[in-house]
């Protein structure tokens, strides 16, 4: 069905390029104005400067928020990936009674607005008298990250034959050793992309953290606070540009790992 050279093909290609423009142009204003030598975000560009980056790096509150976000993101990623691994293994490898209902339950956070999740956890913590902290943010973030981890890992588990694990048991390895010698190496691309995905989701999450963070700000909370002050704006743009670069690198790594894993899978199926 590849008729790329046809009239429709050219039209679609033009549309695709236009669409990419729609996605990228607004986002690229962040790095563009982060080098602009003016507090005002206006055309024409006033001149080139790196002062906003310097200003940003000297901002200790920003650095603290960044450290908090990295910590929350890393712990959330590990926690939700472990939970996702257990659930994905159970749901793909065993005939669990009511498995579909349990799977639907775990994906419920995707279908409830974040604000509702945020305030309901806040109410529970408040009722139990649990003080707000980064730990409560991690709990909230794990809740929304588990469905992502389960989805990524389930598709990875579905991608390789259950009989590979059976073969290992058959050849004399017990359950744990089978996990380490067969399941873990084969699921590794899925585990890595789950860690990256959940890290990025947590790192970027604002609303739930806003309700649950208490006095420790995460990076999005810090940015939210800065948006009110026009003179701080260029430094925020510099920060945004750096996040853009860092997450681009992460995404490329994640996609590379995932597609590399996919190739393995095709080989497995194809042979």
């Amino acid at each position, binding site marked *: 069905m590849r008729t790329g050279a046809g009239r429709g093909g050219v039209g679609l290609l033009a549309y695709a390029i236009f669409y990419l423009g729609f996605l990228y142009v607004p986002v690229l204003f962040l790095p563009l104005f982060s080098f602009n030598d003016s507090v005002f975000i*206006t055309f*024409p560009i006033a001149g080139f400067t790196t002062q906003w980056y310097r200003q940003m790096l000297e901002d200790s509150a920003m650095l603290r928020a960044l450290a908090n976000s990295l910590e929350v993101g890393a712990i959330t990623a590990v926690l939700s990936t472990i939970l996702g691994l257990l659930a994905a293994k*159970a749901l793909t490898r065993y005939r669990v009674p009511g*498995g579909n209902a349990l799977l639907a339950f775990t994906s419920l956070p995707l*279908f409830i607005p974040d604000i509702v999740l945020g305030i309901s956890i806040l*109410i529970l913590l408040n009722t139990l008298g649990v003080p707000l902290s980064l730990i409560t943010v991690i709990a909230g973030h794990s809740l929304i990250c588990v469905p992502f981890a*389960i989805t990524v890992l389930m598709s990875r588990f579905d991608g390789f034959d259950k009989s590979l694990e059976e073969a290992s048991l058959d050849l004399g390895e017990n359950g744990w050793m089978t996990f380490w010698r067969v399941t873990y190496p084969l699921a590794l691309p899925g585990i890595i992309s789950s860690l990256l995905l959940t890290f990025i989701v947590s790192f970027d999450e604002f609303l739930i953290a806003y309700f649950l963070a208490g006095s420790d700000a995460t990076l999005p909370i810090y940015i939210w606070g800065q*948006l009110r002050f026009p003179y701080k704006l260029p430094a925020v743009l510099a920060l945004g540009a750096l996040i853009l670069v860092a*997450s681009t690198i992460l995404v490329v790594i994640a996609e590379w790992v995932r597609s590399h894993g996919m190739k393995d899978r095709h080989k497995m199926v194809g042979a």
Partner: protein
Amino acid sequence: MTTADTTIGGGLTARLAHFYRRSEGARGLVLLTPTMLIMLAALAAPLALLALYSFWTQDGYVLDKTPTLAQYATGIGRATYRELFYRSVEISAVVTLITVLLAYPMAYFVAFRAEKKFIWLILLTIPFWTSYLLRVFTWKLILGYNGVINSGLMSLGIIHQPLELLLYNPTAVVVTLAHAWAAFAILPIYVSLEKIDRSLLEAAADLGDGPIRRFFRITLPLSMPGVIGAAVLIFVPTTGDYITPSLVGGSGGVMIANVIEEQFDKVGNWPLGAALAIASIAAVGIVTLLFVAAMRAAAARIR
């Protein structure tokens, strides 16, 4: 279990171990337990408490726990709140429609025409890994009074006064959300298009369908799960979005999340906030179910 009981005469532990080894279901459930406990503690319990709160009353600093429907009467009865529900659902519905319509040809291009799918997919996802907050905020820079569009047009001499109608209205919210959620439409549609067996299209061509009829009779119906998935994935969170209406909505673009947030922050009326939250889940749920049912019915009519 009768054999288990007769064959193993040992104690309870031995019998349990025996049952555990033999039952796949039991082993699966044990693996699921940690995840389920977290989900119960962080999702089910808070939502139950939220529902409970919505039947209580805030009286100054005192929480009156007499069950009452007063919060719902206020939340749904008061015209301003009702107006907000309508507006939130309307804005999200428009955003969903626009985003899916714009994304479909893009996803189609990647699935059927693109030479290097991998590169296209990476290009399409990268913008969505930048901070959501900044992605929304960038539209404030673009549409603002001294923003990119106004200053650009003025420096070109096309206008002499900044346009005020760009920012702080529902349209600005719609444009911003349609941009911010694009990837969530492209990916599910792409996945469902990619799954379509190409020989089905060849079969349709062989049976006499031209390209357009092939699209409407084969490709579109088979990609419907992706379209429905994309629509739900966008509609649900955008209805409850807080950041976008706050940054670019102005007073005319306020949405339900903003009022809920106020009840928990400035106003301090948690029961009313809880009732509004429950009502918004219900509204989102009902609209979503109706939408999915309608789409399925429509897809079933294609022959």
